[in-house]
């Protein structure tokens, strides 16, 4: 590890230092505000540091990591997302009778894990990144100890994540046993050399897909999503829906491209089946859901299915589409859960459909932002979600994946129903009897500003996506 490596890893150092700093700061005095500020500042500093990197930057940190444009972009995405989550968390946790401070350590560590994930080029770093993320999430999910559901969600996630990690590890071991390398590039080289892929490697990759699929929450590894989404505190749910899944997607893209997985019908077939199943089952499950968090969970299953369509399309356009979709999806999901968090009160999260009835008339701006987010999820123009979906369809059509594309369209239509249902409830004339909150309004300014920025970027990317597209294209190269 030379100086260059160390320099390249500074964003990670900053993150880990921030975690440790908070750790110590807690041991001195617990102060929510201070720790919040530390977290925000460190994330910001980290991000600004990151923007200093050139997109063309390429610095492998042998053998585990590689810092390249793609990685930098994704780390940036993760940092911003984490920042947004942290910002909406402040108001959320301020009103809860729970120690708040550990939360920030855990979330920084989780972000760090995801960051590792997106720049790893080795099984070991992949695994460690994944586990840092997971272990932090176990605690985050169950963070609100007063709620039974939190524990339930936590233990479910823990057992299932460990279970799927075991699959991932076993798969890795098989691949390693056959190829003698744990580096992506090394494996790729071995396979190229061997001309055909031995079955044991295929099986190894297959088992790894189980682990990956679990993190992505695609069918049939999706069953945890609704329960965990429901049980977690709203900001954590946002985090799971975005960073955790997005990190995995980025990893998958890197891994698959390094291996050039597109030439193997087996994997294409597997992913096609998973994509189709995810789209259908996710959307159909969401149809009559009355819990907004679960609804969003099901919708996220479907969205990952859409994402897989772009992923399967492959080629450059497909990769661009994946990343663009991811960005749009991040913004949208953060927005949606942000609203959910803002509306939550001390007792419980605002997760029932009924909580939203007539919201437009009570809190018009909130309702409009939420509607914008839902419309973006539904892929309606003017929003980022539309451009994302357009991108995905374009990628699918370019490579003639008609089946997937048609199924995507059908599912978009099914999906419309429940997004619209939620919007319709907000526009209903009757109003929910939910009382407004008692906290000092200043607390909400942070959340409100965050939401405003999110919704503006949602529209900005929806109306003028050219900049983002160019950026992504440079990143993919």
């Amino acid at each position: 590890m030379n100086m260059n490596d160390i320099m390249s890893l500074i964003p990670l150092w900053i993150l880990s230092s921030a975690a440790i700093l908070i750790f110590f700061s807690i041991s001195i005095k617990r102060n929510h505000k201070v720790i919040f500020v530390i977290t925000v500042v460190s994330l910001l500093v980290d991000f600004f540091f990151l923007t200093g990197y050139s997109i063309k930057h390429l610095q492998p940190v042998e053998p585990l990591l590689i810092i390249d444009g793609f990685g930098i972009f994704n780390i940036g995405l993760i940092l911003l997302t984490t920042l947004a989550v942290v910002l909406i968390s402040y108001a959320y946790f301020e009103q809860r009778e729970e120690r708040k401070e550990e939360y920030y350590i855990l979330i920084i560590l989780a972000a760090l894990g995801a960051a590792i994930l997106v720049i790893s080029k080795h099984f070991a770093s992949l695994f460690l990144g994944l586990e840092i993320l997971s272990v932090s999430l176990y605690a985050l999910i169950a963070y609100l100890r007063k709620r039974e559901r939190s524990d339930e969600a936590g233990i479910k996630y823990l057992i299932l994540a460990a279970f799927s990690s075991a699959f991932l590890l076993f798969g890795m071991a098989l691949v390693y046993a056959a190829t003698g390398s744990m580096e992506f590039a090394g494996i790729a080289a071995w396979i190229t050399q061997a001309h055909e892929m031995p079955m044991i490697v295929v099986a190894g990759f297959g088992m790894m897909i189980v682990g990956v699929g679990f993190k992505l929450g695609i069918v049939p590894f999706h069953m945890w999503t609704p329960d965990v989404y429901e049980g977690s505190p709203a900001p954590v749910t946002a985090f799971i829906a975005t960073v955790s899944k997005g990190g995995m997607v980025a990893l998958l893209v890197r891994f698959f491209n390094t291996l050039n997985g597109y030439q193997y019908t087996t994997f294409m077939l597997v992913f096609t089946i998973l994509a189709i199943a995810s789209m259908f089952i996710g959307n159909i499950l969401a149809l009559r859901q009355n819990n907004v968090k679960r609804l969003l969970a099901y919708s996220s299953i479907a969205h990952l299915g859409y994402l897989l369509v772009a992923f399967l399309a492959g080629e450059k356009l497909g990769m661009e589409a994946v990343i663009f979709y991811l960005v749009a999806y991040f913004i949208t999901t953060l927005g949606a859960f942000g609203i959910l968090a803002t509306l939550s009160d001390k007792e419980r999260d605002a997760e029932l459909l009924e909580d939203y009835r007539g919201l437009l008339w009570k809190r018009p701006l909130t309702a409009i932002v939420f509607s914008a987010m839902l419309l973006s999820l539904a892929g309606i123009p003017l929003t980022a979600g539309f451009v994302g979906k357009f991108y995905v369809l374009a990628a699918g059509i370019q490579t003639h994946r008609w089946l997937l594309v048609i199924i995507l369209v059908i599912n978009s239509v099914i999906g419309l129903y429940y997004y619209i249902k939620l919007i319709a409830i907000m526009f209903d004339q009757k109003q929910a009897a939910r009382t407004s909150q008692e906290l000092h309004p200043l607390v909400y300014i942070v959340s409100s500003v965050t939401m405003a920025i999110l919704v503006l970027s949602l529209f900005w990317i929806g109306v003028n996506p050219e900049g983002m597209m160019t950026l992504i294209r440079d990143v993919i190269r």
Partner: protein
Amino acid sequence: MMLASLIAILMVGGIAAGFLARVNQTACRWLSLITVTIAFGIILFIWIDEGLSMTLTDSWLRDLYIPWIPSFGIAFHLAMDGLSLLMLALTFFLGILAVLVSWKEIQYRVGFFHFNLLWVLAGITGVFLTMDLFLFYFFWEVMLIPMYFLIGIWGHENKQYAAYKFFIFTQASGLLMLLAILALYFIHGEQTGIYSFDYFALLNTTLTPDTARWLMCGFLIAFVVKLPVVPLHTWLPDAHTEAPTAGSVLLAGLLLKTGAYGLIRFVLPIFPEAAASIAPIAMLLGVVGIIYGAVQAYSQTDFKRLVAYTSVSHMGFIMLGVFAFNELAMQGVVMQMITHGISTGALFIIAGVLYERIHTRDILRMGGMWKKVPFMGTVAMVFVMASLGLPGLGNFIAEFMTLIGAWQANKLLTIIATAGLVFATAYSLRIMQKVFLGKNIEGHGITDLSLREKFILVPLCIAIIWLGLFPQQVINTAKPTVANGSHAKNHAAIHNRTRTDNVQYTSAFDTERRKP
């Protein structure tokens, strides 16, 4: 720039009206009225300025090209020809009436209502103007959302269901169109190396017959759902019935027309052979629509539902005419688009006016209104007659030209379609009988039209009679579009014109394109 300003005025006006309503509701109504009137004024200005002297070679009136997403070859490209001009004139005319008609009816969330109203109009304007397929899809969707809200918030009893149905039907079909657009884009890109969504570029795509047919189906389905064509029509009765009056007017008057417009603007020029190959089926569907809509209309007891089914029937003529492939039929179609917008819009307004007075749409509970409201009765009579195609009113010109054109293409179907006029008579007269004639069963005591309502309905009357007696101006305006097969390709001619907008004009063909 004028074209973009049309859209911009409506959008800005919508937002402004939305906020203004918090201060003063009446001011909000006036603001939206003024906004639409300004747009109408602009269109009239353009029409008078040069529409009256249009010639075949000089058929594109205005053009605006601003690159938007260059990496996909997407541009903000608006252009106007006679057809667009007519459609826009209709749009703003009905738009003004829609604002007026809501003056008393909408007392609830006035600001948001007018915001949606103006944005629907903006979306429709965009649809009628855009010459970039991506942008077209964009506007196509943009007009749906506010429309959804109009139905879903200010509708009648079963509004949610109707709004869902409307939204899902149109979205589903729209997405299929998007697929077709994308496929066309890539095919064209692979052929020429120029990746562009520009309408004029894509016109030159060479397609194998099979591909062409599939792609056309994608476009077609979006348009026929909107039109609507039996059996894809079932969203329409619900949506029309449940929408508030302004919503029904916009739906019937304009949204349905976007489907017809799409057929003329996109399906025929881009896929001429494929369209010709399915013409018999399409015409058959048109005829089925004519008959089926009429039969359905006859049995309805809900006034608005009845009128909605008449729309289905009337739109069948459009299908029939478009696929007859001759100028006469096409002129008939254009005429039908306008006259149907006026006549059906008027009938919905009458239904709304009645509903405001007696709070029911059930025609079995009406009857004998004439004695109380002779003026309304007379007006209704005019539009009922228009809907059954009485000569002297605009609809006759439309139907006559359509049928006489269709006769050249397919005799049997034309005969059946003509027979549909008998059914049209049956249901139209039923409206008159049940609502205005007969006995006043429930003893409704109602007042005749107020000044505002007269101000809405009388211009409609005048318009429909005017179109029936002096349709030539409309025909002339539409002529370059429908009469000349290579009209669309004449677009290049506009480059040489000095009188384009002030914007730096970049050609549609030399922007930066990228092979993805």
